[in-house]
C-alpha cells in the first residue's frame, strides 16, 4: 500500500506492506536510524518518537496509522544546526553513557517541556517512566532535562 508520512516537517511517500511498523519505516525506508529499535514489545521505549507532539512507542504503531500525523524524530530536534536545549542538556549533564535509550529519552523530554516548561524532578521521572536506561543513568538524565528546562530560552521554536 502507499503511505505518506510527515516526518520532521517533510512528507515521504513509500509503497510498504500494511504490517510495517513505524520504527522500521523510519529506519529502513527513510534511513533515519536515530530512532532506535529495542524490545519490540512497547516496554523499553528506545523507539519513542513524537506523534503530533506526544511521545509514542513506534514499535507499536503501524506506518499506515502514522500517515496523517506529524512525526518528529531525534533527527528533527536540532534546527538549522542549533541543538535543542534538551540535546544541549544531555551534553552538559552527561545524560548518556551508551546512548541507546537517548533518542527516546530526549523526545519524551521535549514533549514534557512543551507542556510543562518547569517540571519538578518527580514529574520528569514520571514522564520517562516508560523508558529504560540499562546503563542506569537515570540521575544524570533527570539532571539533563532539568538543565534544558532552565535554559529553555535558548530553544528555537519550529
Amino acid at each position, binding site marked *: 500500500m502507499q503511505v505518506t508520512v510527515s516526518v520532521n516537517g517533510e512528507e515521504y511517500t513509500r509503497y510498504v506492506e500494511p504490517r510495517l511498523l513505524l520504527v522500521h519505516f523510519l529506519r529502513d525506508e527513510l534511513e533515519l536510524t536515530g530512532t532506535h529499535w529495542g524490545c519490540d514489545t*512497547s516496554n523499553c521505549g528506545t523507539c519513542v518518537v513524537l506523534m503530533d507532539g506526544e511521545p509514542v512507542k513506534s514499535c507499536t504503531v503501524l506506518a499506515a496509522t502514522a500517515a496523517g500525523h506529524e512525526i518528529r524524530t531525534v533527527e528533527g530536534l536540532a534546527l538549522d544546526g542549533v541543538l535543542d536545549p534538551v540535546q544541549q542538556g544531555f551534553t552538559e549533564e552527561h545524560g548518556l553513557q551508551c546512548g541507546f535509550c537517548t533518542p527516546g529519552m530526549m523526545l519524551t523530554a521535549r514533549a514534557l517541556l512543551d507542556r510543562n516548561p518547569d517540571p519538578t524532578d518527580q514529574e520528569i521521572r514520571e514522564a520517562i517512566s516508560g523508558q529504560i536506561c540499562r546503563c542506569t543513568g537515570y540521575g544524570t538524565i533527570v539532571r539533563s532535562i532539568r538543565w534544558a528546562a532552565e535554559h529553555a530560552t535558548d530553544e528555537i521554536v519550529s
Partner: protein
Amino acid sequence: MQVPAPFEYERATSVDHALELLARLGPEARLLAGGHSLLPMMKLRLATPEYLIDLDGLAGELGYIRAETTTSGSPPSEVRIGAMTRHRELLESELLAGTLAIFGDAERMIADPVVRNRGTIGGGLCQADPAEDLSAVCAAVDARLVIRGCDNERTVDMGEFYRGPYATAVGAGEMLVEIRVPLRPASGSAYEKVDRRVGDWAVAAAAASVSLSHGTIGSAGIALTAVGADVRSTEAEELLAGQLPSDELFARAGQLAAEACSPATDQRGSAEYKRHVVGVLTLRALQRATARALREAQSCR
C-alpha cells in the same frame, strides 16, 4: 524481529464506515484501536487477522468524556466515555477526577505515560485480558456498554459484556462505541492495585464503589482484577448493603471477596499470596471509596 503476519489494511473514517467495513470483510477482520494489545498479539501470532480496520481516524468521533443530564436543572445522571478515549485523557479528565475518582486511581497505574498516549478504554475492554484494570473498574461502578452493529444498538452491563478471558459480548459485525457510568449522590469509588514494578500487570487489584444513604451503605460494587474472580464479588457486595461503614465490616467484605476468587500461582505470586492481597486491597478500596462518598455527601448539603 517481531512482525505481524500479513494482513490487508483499511482505515475507517467514521463509526458507520467501520461497521460497513466489518460487514463487508467478515469475521476475519479485526478493529485496531490504540494497538497496544492487538499489535503485540499479532507480533506473537496469537492473532492473525486477514483484515485490520484502523480506528485511528475515529479518535475525534469516539474520543470524549462528558456528563449527561436527563432532566434539565438536575445534576448530571451519568458520565459517557467514547470508546476511543485514550488512557491519558481518562487520567487527565477533571470530570472523572471529581465524580469517578476510581478511573484516575487505575489509570495512574496502567502501563506507562507513553503507552497511555495511545491505548484506549474501548480497546482495553474489548481485549478482555484477565489482568486488564478497566474491566474491574467498569464492573464496580455499574458501567453500561453501548455496542453498535450496522442496524442495531444494544446496551449491556459488564456481567454480560465479559465472557471470560479475551472474549466479550461484542459479536461479528459489531463494535463497542461508548461506556456509560451512572452518577449517584453521596457516592465514592477507588481502585487499589499491587504490581511487581511500575507499569506492570496487576498481581491483584480491587475496584470498589460505595453509595451512602443516611450514613449507611445503600449499595456497593466490588470487582477484582487478575485473580480469576467472577465479574463482580457479589457475596461481599451483599454483606455491605444496608450496613454502617466500618473497617471491621470492610475487612469481612475483603475476606468474602478473597474466598470467592480463584487466583492461579504464577510468576507474579502464589495463589495463597494473591488471595491475601485481594483481602487487603478490597478493604483499602472500600475505605477510600467510603471516605470519598462521605466528602461528596458533605459537599452536597
